[in-house]
């Protein structure tokens, strides 16, 4: 099969774009890297989340909001396509606040974001301790918990099932998915692109670079300077427990499997996925301050993933000017944004160019030299 388009990177971003393209009758080839690669898609937390996001970038707040709105339909369609349940829940989400000052600070942060949004009903509210306890019957909160912010649009899904479902749906739609197919080089070949893999070359009329932290080197070869750096996030996951936490919280959620996910830290900017007991200790302590009964629960796995960070932390969606037909898609909230990636972004790429809604996310915002 000669593909219409090759997506480089089989993580949550690449797979969602590829899925959206395949649903639009594009002949898609998805190339994924090695088994041991840095994979944010396998390390992430699974929140479909809006509250607190997009400071100083209203376009990001808006993009995130529309993705959370699109997620239910995206999930229904993907579950039907793949036969894999994603366990999406969008009943709201919490950010626990310790101490009255913590609560007040959270309120001011969210207010600031709300003001930048320019109108509309707030999609969050502050809960004091009594209100929070009503929302979480059966959860004994630690004495320091003063309350929480509650985001109406927030939720969570199973990120590993999301990734598996995207891959299965792609295969069922006739796309080609290849693991252990690392792209080493991209060369222009007339209007097409030649992709050099270990021991073989492929050509493609169009490409999407969604290779996470591996994207900078590839994007440069098609004339796009994409500055990226890793940010380590360490996550803890416990044994399975009977369901007790009805809502996800930032940094603490109970999965559909019953395990508790805790995290993630932001600690370190190297290509280093080792974990530190220091981080496990500090995450455990914060968690047991919120829900003391978790002290008796066993940690089963502790891992570190690398977030894919741009200089301002917001996504990059761009088409190369020097090499039309070459796109990049990079972000660090690939689960939340999956619904947008599979619809609006895939649509635009299928049609051949990114509309204005995506222009705030062009990489050229980093090309402008800082005014002295």
């Amino acid at each position, binding site marked *: 099969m000669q593909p219409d388009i090759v997506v480089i990177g089989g993580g949550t971003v690449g797979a969602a774009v590829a899925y959206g393209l395949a649903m639009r009758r594009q002949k898609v080839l998805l190339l*994924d890297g*090695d*088994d*041991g690669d840095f994979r944010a898609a*396998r390390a992430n937390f699974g929140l479909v989340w809006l509250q607190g996001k997009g400071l100083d970038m209203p376009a990001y707040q808006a993009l995130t909001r529309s993705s959370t709105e699109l997620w239910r339909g995206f999930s229904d369609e993907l579950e039907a396509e793949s036969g894999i349940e994603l366990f999406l829940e969008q009943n709201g989400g919490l950010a626990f606040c*310790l*101490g009255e000052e913590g609560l007040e600070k959270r309120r001011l942060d969210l207010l600031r974001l709300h003001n930048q949004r320019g109108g509309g009903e707030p999609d969050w509210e502050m809960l004091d301790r009594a209100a929070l306890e009503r929302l979480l019957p059966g959860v004994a909160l630690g004495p*320091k918990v003063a309350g929480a912010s509650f985001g109406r649009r927030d939720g969570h899904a199973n990120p*590993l099932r999301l*990734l*598996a479902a995207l*891959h*299965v749906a792609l*295969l069922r739609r006739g796309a080609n*998915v*290849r*693991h*252990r197919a690392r792209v080493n080089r991209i060369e222009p070949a007339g209007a097409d692109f030649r992709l050099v893999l270990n021991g073989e070359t492929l050509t493609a009329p169009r490409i999407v670079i969604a290779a996470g932290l591996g994207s900078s080197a590839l994007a440069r070869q098609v004339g796009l300077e994409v500055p990226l750096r890793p940010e380590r996030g360490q996550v*803890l996951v*416990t*044994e399975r427990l009977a369901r007790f936490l009805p809502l996800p919280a930032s940094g603490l959620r109970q999965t559909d*499997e019953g395990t508790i996910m*805790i995290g993630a830290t932001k600690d370190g900017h190297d290509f280093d996925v080792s*974990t*530190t*007991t*220091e981080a*496990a*200790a*500090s*995450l*455990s*302590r914060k*968690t*047991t301050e919120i829900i003391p009964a*978790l*002290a*008796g*629960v*066993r*940690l*089963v*796995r*502790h*891992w570190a993933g690398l977030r894919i960070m741009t200089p301002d932390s917001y996504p990059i969606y761009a088409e190369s000017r020097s090499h039309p037909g070459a796109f990049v898609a990079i972000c660090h909230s690939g689960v939340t944004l999956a619904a947008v990636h599979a619809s609006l972004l895939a649509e635009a790429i299928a049609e051949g160019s990114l509309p204005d809604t995506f222009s705030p996310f062009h990489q050229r915002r980093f090309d402008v030299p800082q005014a002295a």
Partner: protein
Amino acid sequence: MTAPHTDLLIVGAGPAGMAAAVTACSHGLSVRVVDDQPAPGGQIWRAIETVASTPRLARLGQAYRAGADRARAFRSCGAVYEPQSELWQIEPGFRAFLTRDGQARSVTADAVILATGAQERPVPFPGWTLPGVLTVGAAQILLKTASTVPERPVWIAGCGPLPLLYMTQLLAAGGQIAGFLDTTPRGRASAALRHLPAGLRRAGELAKGLAWSLALRRAGIPIIRHVTDLRAEGDGRVERLRYRTEDGREGEVTAEVLLVHEGLVPSIHVPLALGCTVEWHPAQHCYVPLLDGWGETSQANLFVAGDGAGIGGAEAAEPRGRLAALRVATRLGKLDAVRAERAAKTERAALARALALRPFLDTLYGPRAQVFAPADETLVCRCEEVTAGALRARAVEGRPGPNQLKAFTRAGMGPCQGRQCGYTMAHIVAAAQNRKVEEVGFFRIRPPLKPVTLGELACLDQREPAA
């Protein structure tokens, strides 16, 4: 709170760990030995100190009795010994994290010897998760530590020295055997004989094996040979076994307890978690850490000794432990290199002697093909309840590696961290993708090496408690 420091930390108080501790102390190193068991001895000499003073000692055999002296020498060598302490993480440097009695803490050391031994090779077949199916090693531990034996005549399936040894020990203790389903494939004996000339250096061991077999035959134990397929059935516990042999003979028997064993594999989780290079051992069908002549891994000052270095038995474990200790003593300036080399010569000779029979045993008792290719309905991952069929189906689509497969199926994500499904998964991937198993790789191993509670972890947090 500063962590207590020793020159050397030894993990495991079996033959390798104890020998290493005695040698290291004799050269003036400060040594700490941690072990998850209540008493020294490791697998072979489990509960030796308790049993040594009872009449039960006699029925466990000569090799077991030898442990009493070793435990005594270890107790008096001057090492700090911490029983019932589980090691769950080591960070470079080295800082090791342990839990004892629900309390976590850390200790530091300049060098580490991992002497954590081996585990039995997982043998998945339909019904292996039913209560009543245990490993032969488990039954032997029950016999040594709890004087506990199967209530009724027991079925034993598998191959290797351990089932033979256990059966003789069980008979001596007054237990009863319903029958032995011998899974050694046809033709293995003659293939193994090629290795015999070298193995004759270990004529004593060979004679022991023959004596066990003879004792079983004399006792009139039914032996069914060349069993290829096995299945345990029952409602909530084992009630029946079905088996099939190489010539297609099938049988069904009633059973309450089935003990299985298909050899040992080194415990590699700690070296893997620490990023040590491992290599595939084709004769033993498992990974072993890459080690130099002293047992040092690819990570400086981190050693592996004993069965964790490759299955060699207790007699190989001891010289390996002493070699590692000699090297650590040299590194830390307690022993000059020339004297270390001289001492190493004796140990290497002992090691070579102890390993002489290995090629013979590895060939004779290498796992049958079915161990790695369980039927689709078989649970491969006991923790997450993932079947062979599910792994197979997913291994074909897109040809993922083991870590992608883990993410897709959750196999290997439970508390045992792939100790029971890792090799089976690797073989299923290899077969589905037509690759060699050693090219497929293994799960990435994450801390903690043993599940630790959030409360134990929280107590390690160094920050001042917020007011």
